């Protein structure tokens, strides 16, 4: 197939309809950025949930060797631990539980702060500095008083952390941001689809003479539609690149520079999650422009 015509048409089409293409690119850019943001926030929420568990969890800290809690008289003994686990197991409010060892707790801290501070001859902490804990999953977030009162005061219990109180506002704001971004993106995606449709209509009108002759002399439908499809692809690619840049800026200035340093107590998304979001918009962008193009070229360029 001779593609010289296709490419010269592509260049001409992009120039001829420059303002429409810019409108499509800008709309795509903003909507894809918001979609990418939604994907990132979703991963952030998942990451936090992996680390802390869900809102249905409460954590029972067991006494460690030099515990600051007044309830502790020394490190929890095997008998005390067994008694606590037995109470948890029998409680009807408990859906399940997990006994976290000192080593597990240590690994979590290393992951959060970075392992380099725990290496060498003078580490910041060792596994022995970490408390053991029981992570309890509730059947119902509202039914928790039975288990907390049953466990509180048992020998070997240093304290109880109610995850619902800590996590609710964090999950709440992450979710609100996520749905805000995705909701706004949905409207912009619709606008992008309509803009692409209008652009095609204009382009088909501007080329109606050529298209009429092409049909008459027997050019294939694909050949006629190819400049339109390539235009759609080019605008999508520009939109995706811009959005990927904006997301990169968000990752760097929004998370890496600020939050990740100030708010070390929770794990933050990184490069891996960024590429997942970029992958998602790299798929979505071309779909958003190619889909209306395919539908409308079938309509306007019918043989």
């Amino acid at each position, binding site marked *: 197939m001779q593609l010289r015509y296709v490419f010269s048409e592509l260049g001409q089409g992009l120039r001829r309809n420059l303002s429409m293409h810019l409108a499509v690119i800008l709309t795509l850019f903003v909507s894809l950025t918001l979609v990418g943001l939604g994907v990132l926030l979703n991963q952030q929420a998942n990451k936090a949930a992996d680390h802390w568990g869900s809102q249905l969890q409460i954590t029972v800290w067991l006494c460690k060797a030099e515990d600051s809690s007044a309830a502790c008289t020394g490190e929890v003994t095997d008998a005390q631990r067994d008694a606590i686990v037995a109470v948890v197991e029998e409680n009807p409010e408990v859906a399940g539980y997990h006994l976290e060892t000192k080593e597990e707790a240590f690994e979590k801290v290393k992951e959060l702060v970075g392992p380099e501070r725990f290496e060498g001859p003078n580490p910041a902490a060792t596994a022995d500095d970490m408390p053991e804990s029981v992570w309890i999953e509730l059947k119902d977030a509202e039914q928790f008083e039975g288990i907390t009162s049953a466990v509180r005061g048992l020998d070997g219990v240093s304290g109880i952390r109610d995850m619902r109180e800590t996590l609710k506002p964090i999950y709440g704001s992450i979710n609100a941001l996520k749905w805000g971004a995705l909701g706004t993106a949905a409207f912009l995606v619709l606008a992008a689809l309509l803009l692409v449709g209008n652009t095609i209509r204009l382009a088909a009108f501007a080329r109606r003479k050529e298209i009429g002759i092409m049909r008459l002399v027997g050019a294939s439908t694909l050949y006629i539609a190819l400049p339109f499809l390539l235009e759609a692809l080019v605008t999508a690619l520009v939109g995706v690149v811009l959005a990927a840049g904006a997301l990169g800026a968000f990752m760097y200035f929004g998370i890496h520079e600020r939050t990740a340093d100030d708010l070390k107590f929770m794990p933050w998304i990184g490069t891996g999650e960024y590429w997942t979001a970029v992958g998602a918009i790299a798929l979505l962008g071309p779909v958003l422009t190619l889909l209306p193009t395919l539908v409308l070229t079938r309509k306007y360029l019918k*043989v």
Partner: protein
Amino acid sequence: MIRFEKVTKSYPGHAHPGLDQVSVDIEKGEFVFLVGSSGSGKTTFLRLVLREYKATSGRVYVAGKEINRLASWKVPRLRRDIGTVFQDFRLLPNKTVSENVAFALQVIGRSRSDIKKLVPETLELVGLDGKGDRMPDELSGGEQQRVAVARAFVNRPMILIADEPTGNLDPTTSVGIMKLLDRINRTGTTVVMATHDAGIVDQMRKRVIELEHGKVIRDQSQGVYGAQA
């Protein structure tokens, strides 16, 4: 080459069909005039051959294929065997004469070397050698129509369809175009021409098919425009 078997084409919202039970057989290499008043069905006939329309009933055969049943992706290939010329030339104003003719080959994917050979050859055939670099608006109406004929014929189609090709031309220029179409016909190309031009039809003495209200009312070899012969 072209066969209509009881072909009817009706348009939604119109009481009378554009073509009504038309049966016609046009052999390879024939020259046929399609005459009749406006609205008699000439253009409908031509569009059915091009498969721009599908017949409502009956069968249309072009080059041995029943084109009503042709899958739509095969329609472009059918059209490569048919050249088309219109009253209004339909040249691309921003392309030179050569580019206009070459366009028809480019868009069906012919190689550059084919185009380099065929375009000047065809321009010479239609009497436009040396004018390949002109723009269409620098040419007279007759010359523009020659470009259109060159574009229709450059791919050496089996059939040439002309819809009132002399409708915008003065009589002297029209004669030139007719000579050209006759020359193309002599290469073995079937020519079907719809026209209102009585003088030309009478002069050429070719087969005449007359349509009225979508029906064939006369089919005469070596015919004339009016029914008096």
